[in-house]
């Protein structure tokens, strides 16, 4: 706490939280040493300022409050009550794993239809038994959010899907924050060879000020097919630091959609490492940002082997005084010949006070590749608005219709129809267009 990097009240609060929580957090000795390494890394660097390139547009130092405490355990009656309100994907029936304030609750989870092909275990338990190894892909190493996650890790779920399994009902991992405070979660989903599965991650919270540092690690074995839908629907005072790491094997189809819909400060980052040949990774996203919210989508796509395709497409709508960020990086390593990677980020600014920062990056070391990125930002097309209004549609409704149409272009990429339905329902509801 004496290092020069620990400057602001938030830095100090976080440093002392790390120090005081040490004894209470799960894990055997070897994990404790990982924790203390992460803690010293924090002591050395503090929270990232805008001078740290990866955090240039998202000032975490400023966003992190100065009064920090771990979120308190919640009584199960209250949790149950909140749980019914947290159902944001009514359109899809799921098997559900529930984490309340960062702690896995088997009681609240609904695993009736889980079947034999899926096994679930709590991270805290695995840590205690020394059976949880951290093994982030190279591109995620040194990440500040993940390092903080290691320092304060409380719990999470480890889901293993057997080889060859075809899971009909998507698996939902639902995160709920109640009563404020800080929670740190790390989940792992291991997808067996040749299996097919859909995963939905949802994040909700109440009005209290809270900070959720959540990470999920997907290990996708050869020939598997994985569809992920991630809906960030945090409370108005919620701070969300979300990291996705994925290591993708050969002949895999990996699809990932992020909807950033609410939360005071949201940073959703993905690190995808393509490690097997002939795989496809499609990363899509839509962000709806209003008020004085801050929403940051950051992703790194690492092509380490030849013959893989990746596609990234993100749409952001900004209103009021909202700030939007997109940082996307495609890395194509020297041996990753025949890579086809495309990235597109488009933003729509509805208000004079909104702003958007776009940083699509290409880092290419192989020559026989086709890579490209595009980025646009602008306002609603007056001609389109006129067209609708000339047909007697009110200005407000016409705007909403155009916003929906703009986001729909990202959503229509999603291959699972149930996910498309869930997303459309959510956004229509949010825009007030649901009947």
């Amino acid at each position, binding site marked *: 706490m004496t290092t020069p990097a620990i400057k602001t009240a938030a830095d100090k609060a976080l440093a002392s939280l790390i120090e005081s929580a040490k004894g209470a957090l799960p894990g055997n000795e070897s994990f404790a040493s990982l924790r203390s390494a992460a803690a010293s890394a924090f002591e050395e660097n503090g929270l990232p300022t805008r001078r740290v390139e990866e955090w240039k547009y998202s000032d975490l130092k400023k966003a992190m409050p100065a009064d920090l405490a771990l979120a308190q355990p919640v009584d199960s009656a209250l949790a149950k009550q909140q749980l019914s309100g947290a159902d944001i994907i009514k359109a899809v029936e799921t098997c559900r794993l529930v984490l309340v304030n960062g702690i896995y609750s088997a009681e609240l989870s609904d695993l009736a239809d889980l079947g034999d092909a899926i096994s679930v275990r709590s991270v805290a338990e695995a840590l205690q038994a020394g059976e949880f190894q951290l093994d982030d892909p190279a591109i995620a190493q040194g990440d500040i959010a993940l390092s903080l996650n290691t320092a304060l890790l409380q719990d999470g779920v480890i889901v293993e899907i057997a080889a060859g399994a075809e899971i009909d009902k998507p698996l939902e991992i639902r995160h709920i924050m109640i009563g404020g405070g800080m929670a740190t979660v790390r989940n792992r989903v291991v997808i067996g060879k040749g299996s097919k599965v859909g995963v939905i991650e949802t994040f909700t919270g109440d009005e209290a000020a809270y900070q959720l540092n959540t990470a999920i690690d997907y290990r996708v074995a050869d020939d598997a097919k994985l569809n992920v839908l991630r809906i960030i629907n945090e409370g108005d005072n919620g701070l969300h630091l979300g990291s996705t790491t994925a290591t993708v094997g050969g002949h895999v189809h990996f699809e990932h959609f992020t909807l950033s819909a609410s939360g005071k400060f949201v940073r959703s980052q993905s690190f995808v490492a393509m490690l097997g040949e002939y795989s496809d990774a499609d990363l899509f996203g839509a962000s709806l940002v209003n008020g004085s919210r801050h929403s940051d989508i950051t992703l790194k796509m690492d092509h380490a082997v030849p013959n893989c395709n990746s596609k990234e497409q993100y749409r952001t709508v900004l209103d009021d005084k909202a700030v939007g960020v997109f940082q996307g990086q495609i890395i194509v390593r020297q041996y990753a010949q025949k890579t086809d990677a495309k990235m597109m980020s488009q933003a729509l600014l*509805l208000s004079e006070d909104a702003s958007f920062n*776009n940083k699509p990056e290409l880092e290419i070391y192989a020559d026989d590749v086709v890579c490209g990125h595009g980025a646009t930002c602008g306002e609603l097309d007056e001609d389109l608005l006129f067209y609708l209004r000339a047909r007697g549609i009110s200005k407000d409704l016409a705007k909403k219709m155009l916003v929906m149409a703009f986001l729909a272009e990202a959503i229509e990429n999603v291959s699972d129809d149930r996910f498309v339905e869930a997303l459309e329902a959510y956004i229509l509801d949010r825009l007030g267009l649901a009947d």
Partner: protein
Amino acid sequence: MAAVKETVDQVKQIDVDQYKYGFVTDIESEKAPLGLNEDVIRFISAKKHEPEWMLEWRLDAYRRWLTMEEPTWAKLDYPKPKFNEIYYYSAPKVAEGPKSLDEVDPELLKTYAKLGIPLQEQEILAGVTEENRQYSKVAVDAVFDSVSVATTFKEELKKAGVIFCSISEAIREHPELVKKYLASVVPVSDNFYATLNSAVFTDGSFVYVPEGVRCPMELSTYFRINEQNTGQFERTLIIADKGSYVSYLEGCTAPQRDENQLHAAVVELIALEDAEIKYSTVQNWYPGDSEGKGGIYNFVTKRGDCREKNAKISWTQVETGSAITWKYPSCILRGDNSTGEFYSIAISNGYQQIDSGTKMIHLGKNTSSRIISKGISAGRSNNTYRGLVSAHKKAANARNFTQCDSLLIGDQCGAHTVPYVESKSASAIFEHEATTSKISDDQMFYCQARGIGEEEAVALIVNGFVKDVIQQLPMEFAVEAQKLINISLEGSVG
């Protein structure tokens, strides 16, 4: 088209693997003591017969520089220059300022002849009649090491009211203009290298085009770094007053050296109401040998300010040389309806590293900008485009179109694109696209099936790839640039 032929011939003389410009001219030079301290700055200032205010300005910059750190954010990897092992001033010994070319040291003229840049460009470009000459002449403010030794065409420019002289002369003769505009675009403490330049700049060009004047000829400076261990710190200041137009050409070669030579230039452009400045560069400094040894370090700050409404600034660059390039010619679009343009070809081969791009900063209403960047990497080089497009809150209806394409030749090189697009104005429309690819087998097959050799085919395809930018170059440069591209890529296939 004598000029074209001349250029073609010159370029033909360049061998495949050898950098023929790598020779040292034996002219006695006068040096400041090695290293940098306040006394060296006083020495430079005294040598330049500068007024007291200029010395103070330099010393202030030097003191600020001492507190600054070298930037490390660029994708460049190089041993840091040792700033205390550089001579900051070196002037060829010339008798009292020559009034015409006849008085210039014949050794120097020979050097230029070897470079293929005869000072008597007027004779090459004159064509037949006197009337035509007015449009085709190129005025050369030759920079040999750090001092302007010869300025041609002065008389004619004088008639038009254009001031074209060395910056040292401008400091003495036109202090009011220099005081008003120097460092008004690139502040003294803008960045590490700009601050260093402010402290020690030894020469460069100064152009002032008065209100309503269309500069009667293309202005041109040929740079040449000579004299071992001499950093080259140029300072160029171009002011286009209301309704005026000027086109400025900059081209450079340097002798072969084993040691890294540091170059940290600052170029400032100011365009007032309705004025237009076109700035073109062909840069072909020594890139180092086949193992990446030696070569020029090029850290340049170039920035233009469209200060009043309807102003236009256009940068065009062809970068083929230097071991390290760190260069971001930028436009501040302050005046309403002003326009900024950036056209760039950056070619890296061998062990060259380029981190270059532009910044378009939209501040005024209805401002527009256009960025076309073509990067070609071959050998073991790394080529990065780094650009910023930003719209201020008040930049209503700002428009930007950016296209950056990269071409990779060989699997040992890298091409990177790092654009920053920041919009705080809802009515701003920004479009950015980037692609990276290699020369397709189909294209090669098509050419080779028609009897075109492999290297020629690559050159042909590359020239097609960069056509959009070449077209922006003034005629005098276009042919030279095209040949230069072919030469830069020689040895990159097969």
